[in-house]
């Protein structure tokens, strides 16, 4: 199976070493010895040694030859046959201090030219790698909260490569927050009846995964299936992009018309992390019938940063507070929820026939890794033009895709459990019920990689593929975080988050420009 072919990392390294050793990449000195009479006329050669028949040597910075002359000229040093300096006509600094050497060609035995192969390229490559590594390391040393984080991550074959498709239950930071998470595998491309997903733990976290089922939904030609926040699936056709999409920075339509790598995002507010912004949308030629608004988005790393910062402030007490929340301390749970509410989701407003803006729904799925696609059912307006607004916290969301579609019919999924779960390390503990028995969850640690195999009922089938995962994860405390322990700030964070968001804005701005890049470069990504 193409997408699950596993090549051990050690073998790749070995292969690379063998290639490198055999590709002629070694530093090589090429010494050319030339007959003086064959040297090109009117040419100039640098760093040349002129071996004379009497054993003496001219070591020249450059050598000039003339077609009509039987001498060659040059500047450098003249050694006698015992290699004592007789004369030099150029200073080390390159200043000419004496007349040019005029060397009679009949007295020349050989011309020697040296060149070095493969030294410069390797030096440049090593410098570039070192500078990049040093830069990223320095950044992560200064801003450890911007590095080494994620959630359960799922990869699959997209027809060209194994790519990141989904992240599971990002908001389930404790077992009490455990919940189902449905992610559309937008670009998954099954190659036969056995479909595979690669599950990785690329963070300093413990992931407890109770289930990771595939939901197969039938789809017709020219339609796709999308899921609402309540877990209902609709076949959707006549999918159209907005005619206009305007954000505070101006037109952003190009960034949201396709589920590609282009995303619309903004930077956070310098004075308040919960400042809001509005994106205006207009759809033309709106068809009649049931309509749905489609949005593909993910969060920026602001939530990750704030989550890590809160753990840092709690420091050695983090475990105590976590256990209190797990034990059912409602007041603490409310404080955590309050922070989430303040940051908010993407609120969707629609202008009704009276011209008033009405809030329809809010997308609030956490997670900065993989864009997920959501469907929001729209009320019938009877108008050919639809005006909508998205209200969101500045710097918190990356919007990948916006569209309108006609809801054809509701469809029910076929649920497929993994038939096989194989650890990359070759450990198959409890293989019979791994990811099939919720009471016996799969627990993964940093660097763990599992391949999940699913048997589809037929192939090729016209399906939309979703992943439904359930579980929670525990973030590991880091030593530098403990140094930031500050219960006063923790109290401010959970007690008066609206004030904290103002006070933390400036600090966050300092790391925000490079946070995304550093995060991606610091994860333990291992593809097939």
């Amino acid at each position, binding site marked *: 199976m193409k997408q699950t072919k596993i090549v051990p990392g050690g073998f790749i*390294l070995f292969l*690379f*070493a063998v290639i*490198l*050793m*055999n*590709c*002629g*990449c*070694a*530093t*090589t*000195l090429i*010494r050319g*010895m030339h007959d003086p009479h064959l040297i090109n006329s009117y040419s100039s050669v640098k*760093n040349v*040694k002129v*071996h004379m*028949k*009497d*054993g003496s*040597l001219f*070591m020249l910075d450059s050598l000039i030859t003339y077609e009509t002359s039987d001498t060659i000229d040059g500047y450098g*040093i003249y*050694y006698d*046959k*015992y*290699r004592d300096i007789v004369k030099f006509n150029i200073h080390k600094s390159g200043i000419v201090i004496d007349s040019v050497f005029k060397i009679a060609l009949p007295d020349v*035995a*050989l011309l*020697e030219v*040296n060149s*070095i192969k493969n*030294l410069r390229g*390797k030096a440049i*490559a*090593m410098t570039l*790698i*070192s500078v990049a*590594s*040093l830069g*990223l*390391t*320095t950044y*992560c*040393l200064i801003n*450890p909260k911007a*590095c*080494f984080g994620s959630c359960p991550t799922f990869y699959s074959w997209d027809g060209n490569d194994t790519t990141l498709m989904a992240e599971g239950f990002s908001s389930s930071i404790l077992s009490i927050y455990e919940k189902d998470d449905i992610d559309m595998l937008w670009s998954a491309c099954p190659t036969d009846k056995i479909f595979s997903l690669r599950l990785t733990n690329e963070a*300093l976290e413990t992931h407890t995964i109770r289930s990771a089922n595939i939901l197969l939904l039938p789809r017709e030609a020219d339609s796709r299936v999308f899921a609402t926040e309540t877990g209902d699936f609709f076949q959707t056709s006549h999918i159209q992009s907005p005619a206009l999409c305007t954000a505070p920075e101006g037109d952003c339509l190009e960034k949201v018309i396709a589920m590609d790598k282009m995303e619309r995002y903004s930077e956070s507010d310098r004075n308040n992390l919960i400042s809001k912004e509005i994106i205006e949308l207009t759809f033309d030629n709106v068809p009649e019938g049931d309509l749905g608004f489609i949005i593909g988005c993910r969060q920026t790393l602001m939530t990750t940063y704030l989550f890590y910062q809160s753990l840092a402030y709690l420091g050695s007490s983090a475990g105590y507070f976590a256990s209190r929340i797990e034990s059912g301390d409602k007041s603490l749970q409310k404080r955590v929820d309050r922070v989430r509410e303040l940051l908010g989701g993407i609120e969707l407003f629609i202008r009704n026939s009276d011209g008033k803006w009405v809030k329809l729904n809010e997308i609030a799925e956490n997670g900065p890794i993989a864009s997920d696609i959501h469907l929001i059912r729209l009320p019938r307006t009877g108008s050919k033009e639809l005006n909508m607004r998205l209200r969101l916290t500045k710097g918190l969301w990356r919007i990948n895709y916006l569209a309108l579609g006609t809801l054809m019919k509701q469809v029910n999924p076929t649920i497929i459990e993994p038939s096989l779960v194989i650890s990359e390390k070759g450990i198959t503990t409890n293989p019979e019920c791994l990811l099939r028995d919720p009471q016996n969850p799969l627990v993964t640690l*940093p*660097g763990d990689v599992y391949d999940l195999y699913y048997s589809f009922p037929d192939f090729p089938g016209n399906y939309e593929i979703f992943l439904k995962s359930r579980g929670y994860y525990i973030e*590991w405390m*880091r*030593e*530098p975080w403990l140094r930031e322990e500050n219960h006063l700030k923790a109290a401010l964070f959970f007690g008066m988050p609206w004030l904290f968001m103002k006070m933390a804005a400036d600090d966050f701005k300092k790391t925000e420009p490079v946070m995304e890049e550093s995060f991606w*470069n*610091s994860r*333990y990504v291992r593809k097939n």
Partner: protein
Amino acid sequence: MSERIKILTGIFGFLILFGGCRSALVPAGYKLSPREVSNSFTGSWIDISYGTGDTAALKLNLSGELIALNEDTAYVLTETAFVPLTVKNIISAKLHVFNPQAAIWPVSGLLSFIPNIVGEIANSTGGGFVLLGAPVAGFGILFGLAETRSNATLKYPDKSSFDEFVKFARYPQGLPAGLETGKLHLIK
């Protein structure tokens, strides 16, 4: 000792051992970097194992500057004497063209890797900082391994013919007429 410290110690050890693969004892004046070779006005340093007569029972090891080479004789200037050697009696020879670079790349990789080791020890990221620095350390090691194919050292009879040594002699054109060998001296 924690697993993490063991891994880091292992990496250090490997790089240090790898960095220790140095060339034999070559006088400073003949230990040239690849770039310095084009400014050298001497022959390359050569280590020769020489068997006199028809048998190698009387084996002689000598080192010096390769002065010249003709069809049947190699001329070497040692610390004490100018020695003509019959080529057919040379058992083995090692010519030091330039300083092997095998140690430089791993050492560069190690130096660039130090911040990652510091980061890992200070932060306990479960290998995160080590992984960040892995490419630079890995490339250092691989570049070092690639240098095993370099022509920094020519070995006779294993990898080179003796004829290839000619152009690395002080007088590649052959011994000049009228040379007073007593006046020849090594470069300090």
